[in-house]
């Protein structure tokens, strides 16, 4: 029977904590970037102008259909060659995951926007609103509420996807775990603890997201 021993892991908990901090920083960066990119891509995809719609289609489809790890390698090892710039692991990961999650967010935004009934668009136009006012005042406030569950789900996916940066040596939680496992010769304990850290923090996020969702539903502003 194997004898568990977590002491060596806890003795180096600072290492894991630093990794967790980096995971959060990367998630936050890609999340805020991804939301902006996603909204822009969604508007471009809904546009009547072909020269806006086609490139947006291309970016969305390519980044949704190829594996994120391949994208990361492309941005980290490939892109610096074309641009002849230095790329740090953080820059490559931030860029990859911003665009990748942006592509997924774009589809969520688009679906939310087109889900708003035709009558809402028409009555806003009928009182003389322009396209931007209509979006900002009438469509987006309603769409965002409907999109909220898929947004939270995608954000959690993003946090899990950030583990891939360990492969390009960005010191996130998983990378630090690899280091620690080699240092302590305790891979079982290390990977178990790390799995639990992810599990607990992600479960907390989903729990609060579900609570918020209920609150939204209760305010009674949903149905017409």
């Amino acid at each position, binding site marked *: 029977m194997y004898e568990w021993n977590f002491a060596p892991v806890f003795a180096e908990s600072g290492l894991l904590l630093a990794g967790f901090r980096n995971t959060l920083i990367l998630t936050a960066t890609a999340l805020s970037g991804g939301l902006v990119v996603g909204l822009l891509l969604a508007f471009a995809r809904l546009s009547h102008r072909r020269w806006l719609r086609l490139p947006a289609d291309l970016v969305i489809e390519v980044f949704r259909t190829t594996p994120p790890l391949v994208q990361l390698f492309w941005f980290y090892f490939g892109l610096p060659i074309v641009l002849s710039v230095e790329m740090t692991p953080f820059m490559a990961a931030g860029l990859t995951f911003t665009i990748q999650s942006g592509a997924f967010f774009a589809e969520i935004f688009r679906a939310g926007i087109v889900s708003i*009934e035709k*009558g*809402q668009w*028409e*009555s*806003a*136009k*009928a*009182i*003389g*609103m*322009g*396209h931007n*006012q209509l979006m900002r*005042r*009438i469509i987006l*406030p*309603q769409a965002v*509420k409907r999109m909220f569950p898929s947004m939270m789900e995608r954000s959690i996916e993003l946090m899990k996807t950030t583990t891939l940066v360990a492969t390009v040596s960005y010191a996130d939680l998983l990378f630090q775990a690899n280091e620690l496992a080699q240092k302590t010769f305790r891979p079982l304990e290390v990977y178990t603890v790390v799995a639990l850290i992810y599990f607990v923090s992600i479960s907390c996020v989903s729990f609060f997201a579900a609570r918020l969702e209920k609150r939204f539903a209760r305010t*009674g*502003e*949903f*149905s*017409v």
Partner: protein
Amino acid sequence: MPDPILRLSGLAKSFDTNTVFEDVDLDVAPGDRIAILGASGSGKSTLLRCVNLLEIPDAGRIELNGDVVGNPEKSGRARYPERELRELRKRVGMVFQQFNLFPHMTVAGNVAEGLVTVLGQSSGPARERALAELDRVGLRDKADTYPSRLSGGQKQRVAIARALAMDPEIMLFDEPTSALDPALVGEVLGVIEQLANEGRTMLLVTHEIGFAYHVANRIAFIAEGGIYEIGTPDEVLKNPRREKTQKFLAEHRRFQF
């Protein structure tokens, strides 16, 4: 005859290969209350929606108080730049069959929205005005509730208040009672009648023939892709001259006594 508030000339609209109407001419004088009747699918709603350009007509001219809307070209087809669309819609009020209130705003918020966002008023005076309009439709006490708490009839009265707040030169009603329980029709018709008595200019698409007779000063019957018969309520509803009008009215009277 005074200058018309609204003049439609040569208006035409088709969807794909399906012609809805062609060559519609109509003059609406100040204080006119014109009820538009017709079988379902005859294009009466489409005609109404062309007036505030929710549907863009294929050809023809729209004049509002002497202002030509859009840039009519020689071919008869007009271009309507975004700015002109908005300018026209500010001056034309519309009430929809499905109310289309904004569910994320309070009742007063719904009425004040156009004043603030479109006319650029500050929120204080806009709210004052919204409350006054709600008072007129008898719903001032509902100002701070959300639309989901209202009955269908109340929602439609709020929608009317929302249109009135913009001080429109003409009001368009697109089957305003068709989505309502029979018991709630009366309160909405009451508000429309009150507006008619105040001398508001309005175009009203409806199935309520009795109400049309009572409140309108002219009836336009739509069939065969255009205005098929037009005249006073007595002329069109009591002594229709043309065959399709007679048939339509006979159908609608079948179960009335």
